[in-house]
C-alpha cells in the first residue's frame, strides 16, 4: 500500500465527485441532527479543492499537495467541518513534507497525526458520534491486514448507533441514535476513495 501524489490527487477528485452525488443526503442528515448545511459545506470545499488541483497540476510533493488541500478546505468550508478536515490535511503535510509518496510507517504516521489533529482541534474523542469515529478505526486498520473498506463500513454502522455528545448533533441526545452523523458519512466517502487508490496502485 503506497500513496503517491498522483494517487492522492485521483482520490481527491473522486471524492469531490462523490460529494456532489451525495450532497443532498449529507445535508438531509444534518437537517435531522444538525443545521442542514453539511452537504453544502463539503461541496463548497471539495469543489474548491478540485479547482485548485486542476490549476496546480505540477505538484510532485505529497506534503505540498496536502498543505494546499488543507488550506483550501480551511478557507472555503467554514463551519465545524472546515477546520477539522483542514487540520487533517495540514497534519498530513507535516508528516509527508518533501515526500513524493508514503507507505508503511510513513503512511500510518500521516493518518495518525491527522486523526489526533482532528481530535485536538475538536476537543473530541471516539464514541461521540463524529467524524473521529471513522478516522480512528481507519487509521488503526492501516497497521493490520483487515480490508479498509470493511473497516469503514463497520465504523459507519457503529457510529450510527451512537448517541451524539459533540457538535450540533449533541443537542438532540438519544434521538441521534436513529440517524447517521453527516460528518461520519462524508469522512467515509473521503477515506474510501483513499483506500481505493491505496489498494489498487
Amino acid at each position, binding site marked *: 500500500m503506497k500513496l503517491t501524489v498522483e494517487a492522492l490527487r485521483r482520490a481527491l477528485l473522486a471524492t469531490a465527485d462523490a460529494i456532489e452525488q451525495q450532497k443532498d443526503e449529507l445535508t*438531509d442528515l444534518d437537517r435531522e441532527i444538525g443545521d442542514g*448545511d453539511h452537504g453544502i459545506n463539503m461541496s463548497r470545499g471539495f469543489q474548491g479543492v478540485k479547482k485548485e488541483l486542476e490549476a496546480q497540476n505540477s505538484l510532485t510533493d505529497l506534503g505540498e499537495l496536502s498543505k494546499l488541500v488543507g488550506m483550501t478546505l480551511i478557507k472555503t*468550508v*467554514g463551519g*465545524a467541518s*472546515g*477546520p477539522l478536515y483542514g487540520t487533517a490535511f495540514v497534519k498530513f503535510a507535516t508528516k509527508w513534507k518533501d515526500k513524493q509518496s508514503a507507505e508503511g510507517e510513513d503512511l500510518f504516521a500521516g493518518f495518525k497525526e491527522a486523526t489526533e489533529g482532528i481530535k485536538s482541534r475538536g476537543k473530541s474523542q471516539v464514541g461521540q458520534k463524529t467524524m473521529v469515529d471513522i478516522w480512528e478505526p481507519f487509521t488503526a486498520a492501516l497497521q493490520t491486514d483487515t480490508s479498509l473498506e470493511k473497516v469503514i463500513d463497520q465504523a459507519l454502522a457503529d457510529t450510527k448507533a451512537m448517541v451524539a455528545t459533540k*457538535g450540533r448533533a449533541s443537542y438532540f441526545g438519544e434521538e441521534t441514535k436513529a440517524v447517521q452523523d453527516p460528518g461520519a458519512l462524508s469522512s467515509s466517502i473521503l477515506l474510501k476513495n483513499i483506500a481505493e487508490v491505496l489498494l489498487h496502485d
Partner: protein
Amino acid sequence: MQVLSNYYNIKRNQKEEIDMDKLMQDANRFVSDIVDGLVLAHPNQYEKVEGLNVVKRKGGAIADKVGLVSGGGSGHEPAHAGYIGDGMLDAAVCGEVFTSPTPDMVLEGIKAADGGAGVLLVVKNYSGDVMNFDMAKDLAELEGIQVETVVVNDDISIQNEEDRRGVAGTVFVHKIAGAAAASGKSLDEVKQVADKVISRVRSMGMALSPCYMPESGKPGFELPDDEMWIGIGIHGEKGVERKAVAPVKDIAAQLVEHLTAEVTDKRIAVMVNGMGGTPVSELYLTYKYVSELLEQKGYEIVRPYVGNYMTALEMHGFSITLLPVDEELLQYLDASSKAIGFLV
C-alpha cells in the same frame, strides 16, 4: 445563474410542493447580497473588506481603543454586522448561512478592528465558530495583534452546560463590552465585563414555523401549522419539545419558568427577541405577558428590549433573554450606540 428561479422552476416541473418564500436573487450570492445591501444602505457607517463578507466600521479601527469583533454564520440579521457602530462592534465576519466563517475571514475582521489596544472576539458557542475563531486568533497573534476571546452560551434549552449555544444574549455582550471598550477600558477589562455578562445572561426560544435554507429550499425542521417547538436554536435546529400551539401567555410561562430557575437576581434587563419572521406587533404583545409573568414572580424589569435582534432567517417565533444587572452593566447598556440594530 439564478438559483432562485431555477429552484422554483425545477420544483414546478417536478410538481413538488414549494414551501419556501424568500426575496432573493441567487442562493450562491445570498450572504454577499445581504452584506452589500447593508453597506449600501448605510454608506457613512459601514464598509466591506474588499472581496470578503467582512464588514467594518467606515474609516477603520479607532486608535488605542480595544477592538470588538463578532460574527458567525449568516442568517441572524441584524446580527452581527448591524451591531457595528460607535459604542458596539468594530467589525463583523459573516459566514455562509448558518456556517461559521473561515479563519482567514476572521483574521481580516481582527485586522480591521485593531487600533493597537488589542481585539476581543465575541464568539457564540458552536464547535465551528470556536474552532475557526481560535485559528484566526493564532494567525492574528502571529501578526502581533493581541487577541482575547469570550464564548457566549446563554441558551438554557440545552441541558449540558458545555454544549449550550450562544443566542440572543450575545447582543447584550456586544452592547456592554462595546460600551466598555468605547469608554477606554483595557482589553483585559473589556474581556472581564464581557465574561460577567456571559456568566449572568440566560435565554430560551420557541418557533411557530421553521426557516428555510436558501440553497436547499428545505425547512430546518418539519412542523404542522398547529404545533410549535419549544427550545429551538437559531439555525433551524428543532427544539426540545414539540406540542400544540397555545396562547402566548402559556408559552411565555413555560419559558419564564425555565429561565427564572436559573436567574435568582431580581433586577433584570429583559429582551423579547423575534426570530426574523415575527412581526413587531406580536413581539410587543408577547412582551406584555412576559413582563406580567416576571413581575408576578417578583422580578423588576429595569430595561426592556423588544425587537428582532438575533434571528434565524424568516423563522416565526421568539426568545426571552434575562440579564441580571448592576450599576456597571446598566451604565454600559445605556451608553450611546450608533449601531443600526441597537441605537441608543
